[in-house]
């Protein structure tokens, strides 16, 4: 005898009833004047925690009960369906659940940490060269529209740097479509970019930081490192796979607030990006060592780049007037700013924000080049 509620299938009327079943598989209700029904014609919902069970009869009526144990017993007696309630068996086995927790955490960590970067690398290397070139189209146009303006460097200076760039390329295989471009950075300030189609963009502001052209060469090599490692393509594939992974894991919970998923995704993506920066640094470092260029140039340039965002440097640059010795004055500005930031950052340790950053901390990067 199983107590529950009966709904006739025509209205929302509810009757308290008790259900009985016989050995021969006939099921009926004590209080109701309806025919007994064969068990095989009844659709029984599978067990889910302690939520009610529903028995649906061929005539559209439904029996609802909280007595899960009695229903399980009935199913076991009358049905030979080993799959019935399988999910519930898994969900209610404590050891299985515990094992699952550990397995899911371990898998999630391994997959994100190693799986996604490894297979993005593989795919990026498999894809034809054209895939990257296709991706780069329009990026420079968009940046020209939004941020950049025409370079103010003299033609002579541009030619000097281009021949420096080309001399670096001599030792690099399949680099014929790599080309150097200059832009006035404006809001973007001192920076350099490698676009997937092989274009490397330097801002005037970055060029103006350098005292020695080998400093610029070290950054060129870093950007070439991005191109050689297919970083744009890999970043795209990684972002996509991460989005899919998060969606698969949280697929059934998309209604919960997205900040919960946004923060881990940001952390992971900045981790991926930091990894790529380190790879590009490694490329630059190895090249410099092979070609007997002092790696210190990269360290110097990184210090300057960091200092170039400081308020002191900007106000110093603003105060430059007149036409004479502009170059020397600029160099003095940046050297002063570097000294100042070094004095300040003595106490600096890795702050929490570094985990969210797209680049590894400058100090770490600089140290790699200084020690060599």
């Amino acid at each position, binding site marked *: 005898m199983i107590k529950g509620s009966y709904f*006739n299938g025509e*209205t929302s009327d*509810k009757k308290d009833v008790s259900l009985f079943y016989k050995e021969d598989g006939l099921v009926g209700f004590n209080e109701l004047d309806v025919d007994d029904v064969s068990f095989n014609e009844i659709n029984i919902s599978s067990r889910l925690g302690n939520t009610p069970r529903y028995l649906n009869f061929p005539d*559209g009526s439904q029996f609802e009960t909280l007595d899960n144990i009695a229903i399980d017993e009935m199913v076991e007696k009358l049905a030979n369906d080993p799959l019935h309630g399988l999910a519930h068996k898994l969900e209610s086995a404590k050891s299985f659940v515990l094992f699952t927790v550990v397995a899911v955490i371990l898998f999630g960590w391994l997959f994100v940490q190693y799986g996604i970067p490894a297979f993005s690398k593989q795919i990026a290397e498999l894809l034809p060269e054209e895939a990257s070139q296709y*991706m780069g189209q329009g990026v420079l146009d968009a940046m020209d529209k939004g941020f950049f303006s025409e370079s103010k460097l003299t033609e002579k200076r541009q030619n000097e740097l281009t021949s420096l760039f080309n001399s670096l390329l001599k030792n690099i295989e399949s680099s014929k479509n790599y080309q150097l471009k200059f832009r006035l950075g404006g809001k973007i300030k001192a920076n350099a970019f490698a676009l997937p189609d092989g274009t490397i963009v330097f801002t005037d502001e970055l060029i103006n930081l350098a005292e020695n052209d080998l400093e610029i060469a070290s950054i060129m090599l870093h950007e070439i490192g991005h191109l050689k490692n297919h970083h744009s393509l890999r970043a795209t594939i990684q972002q996509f796979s991460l989005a899919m992974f998060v969606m698969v894991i949280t697929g*059934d*919970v998309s209604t919960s607030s*997205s900040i919960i998923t946004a923060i881990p995704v940001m952390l992971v993506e900045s981790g991926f990006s930091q990894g790529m920066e380190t790879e590009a640094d490694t490329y630059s470092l190895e090249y410099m060592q092979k070609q007997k260029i002092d790696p210190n140039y990269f360290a110097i340039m990184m210090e300057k780049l960091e200092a170039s965002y*400081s308020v002191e440097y900007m106000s110093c640059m603003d105060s430059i007037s007149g036409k004479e010795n502009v170059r020397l004055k600029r160099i003095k500005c940046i050297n002063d700013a570097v000294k100042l930031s070094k004095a300040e950052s003595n106490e600096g340790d890795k702050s929490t924000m570094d985990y969210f950053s797209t680049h590894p901390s400058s100090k770490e990067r600089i140290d790699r080049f200084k020690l060599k």
Partner: protein
Amino acid sequence: MENVNEEVGAQIINKPFEFTGKAGEFFAIWIVNVALTILTLGIYSAWAKVRTNQYFYGNTLLDGTSFRYTANPKQILKGRIIAFVVFMLYFAASSVSPIFGAGAFFVLMLLVPAFLVMSMAFRLKNSVYRNVRFNFNKDFSGVYKIFAIPVVVMSAYIFVVSQFQESIASGAEAKPEFPVFVFVLLGLIALMAPWWEYMITNFRVKHAKYGDAGFSFSATTKNYYWLYIKLVLVLIAFSALIGLSVAGISALFKPETADPSEMMKYMPILMVVIIVPFYLWLFAYMATKRTNLLYNNIDIAGHKTQSELKTGYMMYLYFTNTLGMLLTLGLLMPWAKIRTARYRASVTSVNVAGDLSQFVVVQTDKQSALGEEMGEMFDMDLGF
């Protein structure tokens, strides 16, 4: 038939919702869902979604009877596969060329109203209470009519702004009428927002049915304008507060150091102390008031729903949920969902006129899960 109760002046009894789900129990269901989803490369996710919904529906009781979610996982899987393919195409298109991406985005945007209707229909037709199905009238032309005006105004705004930017970029003399246009259109959008929210909520409620009984909605546009006016007042007060504290901090440092970088160090503290609570408040306020406004104005054949969510308690829930999930990398998510559902149920009730036995079953056809799955893929908020 439905009016009989009112005619005889049936007694009104307030029946509260009850939620009986347990965090531990749901955690086990959830983690097994995640594991099986990974093992089956995502295929199980459709079954996972159904079991999750069934758990929440089944633990939500009204007058001693549970709700039931009856969606077929295979149908959801089909919807998911289609949505996944579309998502892949969209992603590929937008990484190949921003123009392609924009085109694909535009086409998808055109389909949003249709997805909204399909999603509502799928969800309601798969919701059952007392063996009677909910239902949703799929009025596609109606939904496009509601979307038409905002879309026209938004497009005009985007067009004017892009023209404005172009004229600045090309260095031509900036036309003085552009800022005026932008300002007028922005004002129009702001003034339209409450009206539009009313229209869309009204649409969703009025097309819903329980059995053969339609839903009626008694909220007015005025209610929605008040909701936003209060929001704007708080925003103004909040901006004043920020202004004062920034001024206060700079006043503290000006005399001796006058060093802006020294001052900047205090900005993160300012962020945490003022901006985070403000965001929490903003989300909690909108969620609370919207829900209350919705449920306090629904009438189904004389039975009226009632909701008394409190902004303060919602803030507390959001804060503790987010904190808990951050600290456990999402493992506390089941707990967060359960306690939110419990709180929501505890403040929701139905003023039942007589009893709930007079609703008549209506046969309905099968619904495609495509709309709902598309919405989920592209992270649209289609929730009811």
